[in-house]
């Protein structure tokens, strides 16, 4: 029972961290119509930024400034937001596809930097000893996980409220208007572009924050955490939840993560050892197919606003 509680808190924390990323994506795609296939990259930038800022000094690595966790989170948002802003500035005056291609490239390059810039990122082994909040109660798993869940839930709620507020603000109305009417957006030219860059950067910053929150939650990060599969998962979460709805983004994250973890546990229990890797591949096939089916039959998602996006 205790284990179950503890696991429940752990599960929910992970799911809500996905929820934060999905909220960031919803700002970019749901509200503004900007396509991002490099989510894993922006998420990783946040995680590494915060890790480098907050870890204690190590001999063979740049960074290790030992700063407070809050500073790490701010740094994560700033750096991921900056990366997103540059991506936006480079592509948002061009056709939508160029943004998609460039974000894909961002994720590739971030992956390379994580693997190869060992002096900064620790290479394939990543960064360890990332300070965890409430490390003092680590030996009491229920309490520890519960406290962490409160932090993650608090951040999720704060981002949720902030985005709800933003999307109802004049700023959010402009973004929606730009998304609905491509021609108006083009004729507005520079100012429309600047709105979109702002939205893309803000979404990137939210993803970066999610990366930082997760890094401090786990205490250890490595390039393997940030594979393209993560980007797929987040897209599936947003599409299931219904793009355009912040509530849907969070619910979709919990549902998809539950399906993912559940099917993972089922294959681990039922599939013989040498077929596990193949079963895991099939799990991803399922997500891909699901994404396509949603696009075909229910583009508004399951929890989204009634009015479809298409």
């Amino acid at each position, binding site marked *: 029972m205790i284990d179950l509680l503890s696991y429940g808190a752990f599960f929910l924390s992970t799911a809500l961290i996905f929820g934060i990323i999905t909220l960031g994506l919803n700002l970019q795609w749901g509200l503004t119509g900007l396509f991002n296939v490099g989510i894993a990259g922006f998420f990783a930038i946040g995680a590494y930024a915060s890790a480098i800022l907050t870890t204690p000094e190590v001999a063979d690595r740049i960074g290790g400034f030992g700063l407070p966790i809050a500073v790490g989170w701010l740094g994560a948002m700033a750096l991921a937001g900056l990366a997103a802003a540059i991506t936006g500035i*480079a592509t948002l005056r061009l056709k939508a596809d160029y943004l998609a291609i460039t974000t894909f490239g961002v994720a590739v390059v971030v992956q*390379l930097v994580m693997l190869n810039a060992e002096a900064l990122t620790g290479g394939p082994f990543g960064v360890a000893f990332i300070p965890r909040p409430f490390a003092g109660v680590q030996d009491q798993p229920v309490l520890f996980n519960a406290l962490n869940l409160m932090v993650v839930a608090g951040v999720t709620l704060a981002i949720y409220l902030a985005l709800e507020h933003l999307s109802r603000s004049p700023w959010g109305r402009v973004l929606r208007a730009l998304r609905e009417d491509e021609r108006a957006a083009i004729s507005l030219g520079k100012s429309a572009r600047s709105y979109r860059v702002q939205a893309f950067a803000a979404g990137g910053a939210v993803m970066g924050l999610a990366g930082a929150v997760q890094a401090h939650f786990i205490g250890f990060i490595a390039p393997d955490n940030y594979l393209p599969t993560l980007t797929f998962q987040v897209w599936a979460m947003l599409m299931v939840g219904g793009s355009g709805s912040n509530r849907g983004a969070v619910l979709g994250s919990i549902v998809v993560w539950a399906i993912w973890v559940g099917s993972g546990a089922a294959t681990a229990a039922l599939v013989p050892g040498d077929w596990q*890797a193949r079963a895991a591949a*099939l799990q991803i096939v399922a997500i*891909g197919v699901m994404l396509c089916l949603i696009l*075909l039959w229910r*583009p508004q998602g399951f929890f989204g606003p009634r009015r479809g996006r298409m």
Partner: protein
Amino acid sequence: MSLQFILDGLINGSMIGLGAIGVTLTYAILRFSNFAHGDLMAWGAYATLALVSGIAALAGAAAPIGALSFGWPMIVAALGGMALTGLLALALDWLLFARLRDRGQAIIIVMASFGASMALRSLLEFLFTSSPVYYSRAIQMAMPVGLGIRVTPDQIALLVVTLALVLGMHLFMTRSQTGREMRAYSQNPALARVVGIDVARIVRATWLIGAALACAAGIMVGILVQIRPLMGLDMLLPMFAAAILGGIGSIPGAVLAGLIIGLSEAATVQLIGAEWRAAVAFAILMAVLFIRPMGLFGVAER
């Protein structure tokens, strides 16, 4: 400094260029960037492998042609693989892309291609596992050709094949009625219908050609390097970068840009280190987007 990188770059660039032709045609005619294009490449390579194995099982081992690492079954299998990849692309279009195309909203189609890419790639991992496989285990001796450059017979043969494919494509696009219709459709889809061009036929031709060339590129990677489910994903960024650098819709542009990227990658491997190779395409992509987004041979967007 060794000049070997020039040859390596040309070979690498040929594969990128062949793939980029499909990307650029898909973009110019079907109006979306197909994230599943790399996976067509991988599927083509595996389909060819399956056919080669099938032929070997039925007809027994065949002797290699001259100094090459492969014999006639490879050539038959390659043609079969290209046809199968074409059918796969048509099936994807029928199941997914055509339905979304009817609703407009190009970016939704991009997203669908992204989902399809993930499913296709993981399906390969499911079927063949993620460990690499090879068409042939034979080791080829590289011959010195002067200036410190060494080349294997396979490399020469595949460069010649690439050249033939590119020339053939160029002639097809400029001389054949279907090629002209494809160019016309990419310039003005509405007018194309008015002059009697059957759009469905153009769409089919685009998928068949793009997929067949992706398969050819995949086979080249398979012969010269190895076959892996992720091989297409790794080529995706260089192919996109080549299509954009060359100018969307331009086949000579895509090929030339592919060579430029291939050479830059090879130079990077030699000068900086192999681990940074994958960043080259991104650097070139960013440079093009900032300096000349229409690419080398592109025309300004209407």
